[in-house]
């Protein structure tokens, strides 16, 4: 029984859990994005990204497409990045985020169970995690997000 168990790290257990005590500093202001702000959105996709992360470029076009969805807000968390580089990245590829925050030391991301980027978490207005995506979003992931929010 135990020998057949898959020992690879999986994040499925996070689905159905509620996120709490979040406080993410806005990218441009000395203000914080908190739980109350998340509760205002029907659905939020929290996307952890950085300009130095190559797979983040790969998923960016899908994020741009998702930003057009009316029932979904995109919360970007710029992870361990340099501000100038991050701005250049968004100027070049476009800014899909409704809210942009930063996590310079990566400590805030631990509260979301992040262990590498890109990672995305889909939450509802009750702050419940509906799905977690490890690695760049694929077209299948895009379809599943659209299906959940509509």
């Amino acid at each position: 029984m135990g020998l057949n168990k898959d020992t690879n790290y999986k994040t499925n257990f996070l689905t159905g859990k509620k996120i709490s005590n979040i406080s993410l500093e806005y990218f441009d202001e000395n203000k914080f994005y908190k739980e109350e702000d998340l509760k205002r959105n029907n659905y939020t996709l929290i996307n952890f990204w950085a300009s130095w992360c190559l797979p983040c470029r790969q998923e960016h076009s899908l994020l741009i497409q998702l930003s057009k969805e009316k029932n979904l807000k995109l919360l970007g968390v710029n992870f361990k990045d340099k501000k100038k580089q991050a701005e250049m990245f968004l100027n070049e590829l476009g800014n899909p985020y409704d809210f942009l925050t930063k996590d310079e030391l990566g400590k805030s991301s631990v509260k979301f169970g992040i262990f590498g980027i890109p990672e995305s978490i889909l939450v509802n207005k009750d702050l419940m995690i509906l799905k977690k995506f490890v690695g760049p979003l694929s077209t299948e992931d895009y379809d599943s997000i659209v299906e959940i929010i509509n």
Partner: protein
Amino acid sequence: MKFKLLMIILLLNFSLVNGEEKKVDQNTIHKNLRCLVCQGQSIADSNSDFAQTIKLVVKDLINDGKTEREIYAFMADKYGDWIVFKPQVNKQNFILWFLPYLALVLGGVIIFFLFKRRRN
């Protein structure tokens, strides 16, 4: 007088021992946390980006007054039991924890009855 002095020494000793117990050792915690992006390394052994971040968070949690147990519970809540080398007892793993003790007790009982039968 002697009794009072003895009591004071005992109390002081007790509080010292308790104080030692409450002290949270950062390195012990690092050693008992798995680096999720490494091959079989602990947070203490690894210099990966993930390990560095976890070390910072552990430091913050200690400064916030969290106990070793609370820190493991926090990490397990965020990353699952897999992150802790010595997982806490829960519904999923209690058999794994208690089976050796059960086997020991059962073995003892069997040996006891075998000896008893031999004597008879």
